[in-house]
């Protein structure tokens, strides 16, 4: 793992054997490393044991989980699926990221009521289930009134994790899991793929195990979350990792310092994470009577509604671009989904540009907090970019910002960077290998190029197929990939494609209804 990358759950990357050293038995050979297509003989010569299984999913996070859920509901037995993962359970990474970015289990996600990773039908939705569990019509009233008279109703993180855990056991997901780190996927002469797994130290007699499968699915999550270079430079030069932080790493120490003594913090960014961090700072301020001063810098300061024409105008103001979810809602099923599906090349990239960009939901409680902060002059939003960071006295940080009014200097106790910089797909070793040896290519946004079916273009090894879902495929024919519902939409496309290939049963009205009934009764499949 590079130093500028935020560490997520899962072990660090296992190294390859040194080039000048003869590989140990059961390890990758130079012949294998250098060949795009592998024969069964070449793998046997390396002494790597081979496990045959029809379907392999790499990653083991929520992307693998919803895909396996779909396949299980379409009648695929657990013996036909292997999920290769380093995670303890599918929601481990996601829960980590939400928790550190101030969404513990009792707080609400930014996700629609009918986006349920534990339920491919989205019915009953989270709001209906919360209403039943709490014997209250409040959640139902809320979804009825959203987004006109109330904010979008969103589920508590805990509800999402607990319901996923239930489904995880219902579909016997643990039976499919194999622990280890995937090193690469290569096409097989004769069809299908070899997926090379490095099992945990001491868990297997050989260093590698090859999974020989007709189908491969890649859902490895973020290729990497990176610190912005200015932040990283300060941290490395001054060995200060505690006061200049990214919101996606644990940073509880900053809130604790503010509890101990009054101080000023600089928050950077205009997305949902910035909203969450502000809420935490203001909640603490209110609950403990703190005197925290909050500086908030936006690179692009949005002053009002914006967009190319009257048909495409997004709400904004006070620095923020407002949107209920991370894309306009209809990318998950309506007009925009249908529109992007038909677009190629630059036209697609342009549309992504229009509805993309950093944004956050307009929520009444956040609006009230910020209004109060501006009025009482402890919350100061402005347009600016950090031009330098330097250590100040008593553990403070001196920050210089470039603003339209000229340079401004502040002394703060902490900088909380809420801008996410997703690493290039090449930074993930499996993707790098696929770009170099697997025939994979990039889409208009530089991510993995996938078909409408989520098959990775250029990687076909007849009769096999390789699919990818999740954030690595952003920029394709379907925009909302990196979300609960987006992962389920990808899973549906993949299952539909596999149905055509005869791997699983079609999910027509009868099967769908009978399977839903099993789900509703919690019947194991």
């Amino acid at each position, binding site marked *: 793992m590079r130093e500028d990358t935020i560490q997520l759950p899962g072990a660090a990357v296992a190294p390859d054997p040194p080039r000048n050293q003869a590989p140990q038995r059961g390890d990758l050979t130079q012949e294998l490393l250098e060949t795009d297509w592998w024969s069964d003989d070449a793998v046997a010569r390396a002494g790597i044991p081979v496990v045959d299984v029809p379907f392999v999913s790499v990653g083991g996070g929520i992307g693998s989980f919803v895909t396996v859920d779909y396949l299980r509901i379409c009648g695929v037995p657990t013996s036909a699926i292997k999920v290769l993962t380093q995670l303890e359970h599918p929601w481990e990474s996601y829960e980590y990221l939400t928790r550190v970015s101030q969404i513990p289990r009792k707080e609400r996600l930014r996700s629609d009521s009918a986006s349920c990773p534990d339920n491919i039908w989205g019915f009953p939705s989270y709001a209906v289930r919360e209403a039943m569990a709490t014997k209250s019509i409040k959640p139902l009233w809320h979804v*009825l009134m959203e987004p006109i008279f109330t904010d979008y109703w969103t589920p508590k993180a805990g509800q999402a994790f607990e319901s996923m855990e239930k489904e995880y056991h219902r579909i016997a997901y643990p039976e499919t899991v194999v622990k280890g780190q995937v090193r690469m996927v290569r096409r097989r002469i004769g069809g299908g793929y070899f997926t090379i797994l490095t099992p945990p130290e001491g868990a297997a007699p050989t260093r590698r195990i090859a999974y020989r499968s007709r189908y491969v699915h890649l859902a490895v999550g973020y290729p990497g979350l990176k610190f912005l270079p200015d932040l990283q430079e300060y941290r490395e030069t001054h060995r200060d990792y505690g006061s200049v932080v990214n919101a996606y790493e644990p940073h509880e120490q900053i809130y604790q310092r503010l509890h101990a003594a009054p101080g000023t913090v600089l928050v950077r960014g205009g997305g949902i994470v910035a909203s969450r961090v502000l809420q935490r700072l203001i909640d603490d301020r209110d609950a403990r009577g703190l005197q925290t001063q909050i500086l908030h810098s936006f690179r692009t300061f949005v002053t009002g509604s914006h967009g190319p024409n009257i*048909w495409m105008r997004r709400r904004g103001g006070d620095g923020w671009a407002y949107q*209920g979810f991370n894309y*306009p809602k209809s990318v998950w*099923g*309506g*007009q925009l*989904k*249908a529109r992007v599906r038909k677009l190629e090349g630059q036209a697609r990239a342009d549309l992504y540009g229009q509805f993309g960009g950093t944004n956050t939901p307009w929520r009444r409680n956040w609006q009230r907090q910020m209004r109060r902060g501006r009025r009482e002059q402890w919350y100061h939003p402005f347009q600016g970019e950090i031009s330098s960071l330097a250590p100040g006295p008593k553990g403070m940080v001196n920050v210089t910002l470039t603003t339209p009014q000229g340079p401004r200097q502040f002394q703060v106790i902490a900088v909380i960077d809420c801008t996410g910089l997703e690493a290039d797909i090449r930074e993930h070793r499996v993707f790098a290998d696929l770009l170099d040896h697997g025939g994979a290519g990039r889409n208009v946004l530089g991510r993995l190029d996938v078909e409408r079916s989520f098959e990775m273009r250029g990687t076909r090894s007849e009769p096999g197929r390789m699919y990818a879902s999740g954030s690595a495929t952003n920029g394709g024919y379907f925009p909302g990939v990196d979300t609960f519902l987006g992962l389920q939409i990808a899973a549906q496309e993949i299952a539909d494609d596999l149905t055509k290939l005869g791997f699983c049963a079609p999910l027509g009205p009868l099967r769908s209804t009978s399977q839903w009934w099993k789900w509703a009764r919690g019947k194991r499949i």
Partner: protein
Amino acid sequence: MLPTLNGRIQTRIFLLVVVGGIWTLLITPVLPVDLPLADRYRVTFIVLLTVLVFGIVWEFIYHFIQQFRWEKDWPTLFGLVTAVNEGALVWVLLELGVVPGISSPVPLGAYLLQFLTTWIVVWLVANGPMRVPFIHWRFRGGRLI
């Protein structure tokens, strides 16, 4: 909901014919109308058909209004409150006696009972249970075919 124009029209036809049809079959005998059962069914099904035909015209208008929304969505509440304009239009047409096949006046109470209960049943089905048999439906803008 996240409808496309095509999806709106398909969903409208399917739900009114199947769900609305079944509901009309069930509710007609209990409506406060002084007519033989066969005539009642004739009137209630003509009312249902009128709602369906004008509903398709309404869908074009809703689709146009939807274009002003950044999210290009159609909030759940809109699906409920459009009962007001649609119900009022059909009532006016009934009062004017321009609906073919219905010559005698329709009692307002019976009309409201039929129209509103059908509307609510269809709206409830559209907002959840519809996804159970038709798992692709919500991701295709409401298209069934």
